[in-house]
């Protein structure tokens, strides 16, 4: 049984078609890497799956554990188990990180008909997760992402993921802006969360991240569709040869789309 089944997905942003017939199937426990040139629609995919406003689906379907994901509100998708780790995590001044996370977890639990966690139980959970993520206590007492370094913001995303325990985690260029040490820490956090019933979609520009988070499948997203799929060796090939070679296999793709220029 598939956890996620995307079929012929078309989506528009500000009137411009970005996804043009994307299909992808993910089973529980799998890690799928999505690579591709700039403007291919990588971030759009994450935003469409999470239900961001302004991303208009014009055709196709998305089933998540058998449910029509596109019919759900963003907060319902979160409660159903979809998590998006942001490329640029958002600052919310004055809102305590722990408070935010508890509100999020309890909102999700309420949706699922589970009892809400009181502060004691929540704190216990947070302490456990902190240990796994190797994140300092101090981060908990600060406002959400406010004044965080780039690395801290990304680690905070992974920490949120650890607490919320989603079924499907979409990492949107989580490696961008990280030095090698920060990258390793983030990857370790992700690896600690890998499990047979949790799937990952890892969106990245660089093969480097995949040295640390080993994918089961690698896909190339270009011109709004998955044009090539393979195992991790595909990522290595892309690293060596870039995207230009894909033009031979897919003559319908414009050169500009493979060069990472916005048409």
């Amino acid at each position, binding site marked *: 049984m598939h956890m996620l089944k995307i079929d012929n997905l078309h989506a528009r942003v500000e009137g411009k078609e970005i996804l043009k017939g994307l299909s992808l199937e993910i089973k529980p426990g799998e890690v799928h890497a999505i690579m591709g040139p700039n403007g291919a629609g990588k971030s759009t995919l994450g935003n469409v799956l999470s239900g961001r406003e302004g991303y208009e689906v014009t055709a196709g379907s998305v089933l998540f554990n058998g449910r029509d994901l596109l019919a759900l509100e963003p*907060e319902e998708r979160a409660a159903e188990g979809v998590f998006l780790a*942001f490329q640029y995590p958002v600052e*919310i001044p*004055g809102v305590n990180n722990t408070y*935010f996370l508890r509100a999020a977890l309890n*909102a999700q639990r309420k949706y699922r008909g589970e009892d809400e966690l009181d502060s004691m139980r929540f704190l216990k959970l947070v302490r456990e997760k902190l240990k796994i993520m190797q994140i300092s206590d101090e981060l908990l007492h600060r*406002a*959400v992402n406010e004044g965080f370094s780039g690395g801290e913001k990304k680690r905070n995303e992974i920490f949120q993921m650890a607490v*919320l325990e989603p079924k499907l985690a979409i990492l949107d260029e989580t490696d961008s802006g990280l030095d090698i040490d920060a990258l390793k820490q983030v990857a370790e956090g992700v690896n600690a969360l890998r499990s047979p019933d949790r799937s990952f979609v890892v969106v990245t520009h660089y093969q480097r991240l995949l040295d640390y988070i080993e994918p089961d499948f690698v896909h190339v997203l270009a011109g709004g569709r998955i044009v090539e799929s393979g195992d991790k060796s595909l990522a290595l090939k892309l690293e060596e040869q870039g995207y230009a070679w894909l033009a031979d296999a897919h003559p319908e793709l414009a050169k500009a789309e493979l060069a990472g220029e916005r048409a």
Partner: protein
Amino acid sequence: MNESENMTREVAAPVRDNAEVEAALNRRYEAGFVTDIESTSLPPGLNEDTVRQLSAIKQEPEWMTEWRLAAYRHWLTMPEPDWAKLEIAPIDYQSVSYYSAPKAGLKSLDEVDPKLLETYEKLGVPLHERAKLAGVAVDAVFDSVSVGTTFRKELAEAGVIFCSMSEAIREHGELVRQYLGSVVPTADNYFAALNSAVFSDGSFVFIPKGVRCPMELSTYFRINAMNTGQFERTLIVVEDDAYVSYLEGCTAPMRDENQLHAAVVELVAMERAQIKYSTVQNWYPGDENGVGGIYNFVTKRGDCRGADSKISWTQVETGSAVTWKYPSCVLRGDRSVGEFYSVALTHHRQQADTGTKMIHIGKGTKSKIVSKGISAGRGQNSYRGLVKIEKGADGARNYTQCDSLLIGKKCGAHTFPYMEVKNPTAIVEHEATTSKISDDQLFYCLSRGIGEEDAVSMIVDGFCKQVFRELPMEFAVEAKKLLEVSLEGAVG
């Protein structure tokens, strides 16, 4: 005010459509009930006879009557101010009744009409035994008359005087006479002059030398009768080395007519004295089309008369159709400190023009201003502040932070900071930001499972945190709740 600097910002924020939000928009004003009790009112209209009658009803000494008349005569010569960024229909001062009191004479809390007490219950005023539990002494002003003051005995033992202004004029005439109008003179401004002529009640607080007031003092104001203006007058005098924390809450029922509220608050802090004055203002704001609501014209000023004294204003303004209010500090004593923390929210068609004045006269005086304006719907929110450093104020310092948050695309935020610096050793800092609840912030919350309404109130609460933490605990909780209710349906 000198227009030495003048900045206006208007930023449009993106809109979201939501049917639930529409429904929440029509939610009723929770304090909007009318209490059905008999009341005695003066007929509408204002002339010298009205002032005399009012003074006679209140059995005031002659000096007080004359004081009122002088204010009234001066008021007649003054033009209505029009410099604020407010659009107000002309006010007919002759159609207002300047006095309304529950009929029966009141001697103690036990004699208070149970219906009236019920009103307070509904409002959550911790009167009577509930007050004791909460540790708050309450002076509740209902329309024009103070209906009962709790904890008189306990306070008296500490030497603290806390009573209605009417009673103070009768019982502590000399004290009142010494200080009344010494901070806000009768001719200070149009609304202060009007208040001086017709104020009907209010609170009087006197904290003698070296006394730390054993509890938080609190007043609740409520406008009930139709076509009544409320003109309360509050005077707080804190002697050397004494301290008081004073809380003020306000509500009014729903009426289609605009009701007038013109209050004056005077604070006097002697040497090393400290006054903390907190307001949660929830007057009826009018409906979503701007019908009805309170016109709130308030003059609040504190005088740091003694060296090393400190006056701190904290206000959360969520109500009123129109707010015109600038709680200020005159930093006369050397090294005295003035603070102003404000959250002002305007939704629907509410308008607020509010801020503060910090007048540095003494050496080494310091002031801090933190203003948070929130605009939603078609609300218009202006910060207007003056920092004035006089010649002799060596080493004076001011820090001003002025932040605006916009929700929706039809509202406006404006900042009018004025600075007049006459001493070269002074340091004056001003920081201002305007932001909107961004789609990014909202989506971030949604993507974590937090619903839209909760997300908005969380973001707004975070925005106001700096001010909320200045409020006494129970007030901070109330303020947060008020903002939530006031903002329901704001994202739409």
